């Protein structure tokens, strides 16, 4: 089981490395923080598996029709009138772009500690 999880993590890490063509991605250590933040803290409302909770599902299928630009705006500025807060105090634009990219592609799991 542990090996299987490790394999997933390694595969994810490789995928991330491959996808790191964009020069303005965050540093790898920041990426790990972002994975944890999304899984654990966004997960408080959206579920750790991102299947949804008080907030909607954030799986690729659920987000397919939403433009990346509006997802980024939602993360940074929140959705007034809903429970979604603005995260710009804690996340940079680079962070938000990275999160959107991987939400749309299938978000990485957390590394085995």
């Amino acid at each position, binding site marked *: 089981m542990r090996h299987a999880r490790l394999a997933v993590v390694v595969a994810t890490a490789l995928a991330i490395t491959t996808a790191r063509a964009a020069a303005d991605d965050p540093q790898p250590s920041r990426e790990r923080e972002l994975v944890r933040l999304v899984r*654990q803290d966004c997960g*408080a409302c959206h*579920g*750790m598996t991102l299947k*949804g909770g008080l907030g909607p599902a954030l799986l690729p299928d659920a987000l397919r029709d939403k433009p990346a630009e509006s997802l980024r705006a939602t993360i940074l500025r929140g959705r007034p009138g809903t429970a979604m*807060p*603005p995260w710009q105090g804690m996340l940079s634009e680079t962070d938000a772009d990275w999160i959107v990219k991987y939400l749309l592609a299938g978000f990485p799991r957390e590394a085995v500690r």
Partner: protein
Amino acid sequence: MMRFAHTLLAAAAALSALAGCATPTMRGTGDLGVIIERASGRVQLVDTSARAAFGSVPGLGDLSHASVVYSRDARYAFVFGRDGGLTKVDLLNARIERRIVQSGNSIGGAISQDGRLVAAANYQPGGVKVFDANSLELVADIPTVYGSSGARSKVVGLADAPGNRFVFSLFDADEIWVADLSQPARPQVQKFSAVGRAPYDGLVTPDGRYYLAGLFGEDGVVLLDLWKPERGMRRILNDYGKRGEKLPVYKMPHLRGWAIANGRAYLPGVGRHEVLVVELTSWREIARIPVQGQPVFVMARPDGRQVWVNFAIPNNGTVQVIDAMSNQIIRTLAPGRAVLHMEFTPRGEAVWISARDDHRVLVYDTRTLEPVATLPAENPSGIFFSARAARIGF
């Protein structure tokens, strides 16, 4: 021969330990509890007298938002998972007694006054499902359909009340429903509408008389006197939040009957670095206590002398302790990174605090306010002790 018998015995002991089903020793469950390991779908079983774990039960599904109620004999923990899983865990045998997946997405649950019914609050599909506490067979289904479109609201703030009633709030519908299950197969539901925008959680006071729901969509708290439900909903604290600007709310606060101390309710300010103090029965705000972050859990020690507060990200590394006589903060603690939950022992000499990102649970002496034990745990979130079995509203 003697040596051989010894080896056999040791082997048998090792085997049964491995199988995780050692013959239970004769013991009570009043000082036991569970710690949710949220990312691993597992609960640790803990002994609050020994301040140690004595078992681990995996296979509980997605526990990213898990909560627990106890059977009235305090032997079984009913664990409600995010994925709609409802798992009945046997503390004595350290194993799953029964498990069902009862919805697509669940937030929590409650157990009835007579202990025979377990109710689950669901987001997807929205509603409350009621199960036989022994068999986990469905007894009643209460879909939270509202308005004319047939839409179903997410359910929050589900709590038990005397008379085998369950009270809960409809987040999307701005309604509060009281379901009387004295005849379990035929629930009688009383509905209160337009109570206020987006109730986010609710509590029943320890005497079972009042249901309070916090509002997310506007300022104020809604109050229902369950002794006189015909009087309807009453709004209290209407000016709450109107002074100054609200901050973004990074985590919904949680309400439960633990908020009552010294004749007052201590409530988390929504989007504020404040704890609100409300006098019971007059329901007047008598103080606001400035704190270090947005409160998530505001919990009174069982004797009501202290109130402990934890906070939403990014201030989730601290816990503050309020003295309920002076309403002053007497200590700021740093139990670890990402403090998610706290639970007092039945009479409150100790409190257990989970620090998710440090993968540990700290036990504090509530008199000295010093840590006295540390338990390792993988991404610990909720901590639930079996003494909840005997508390109204838990």
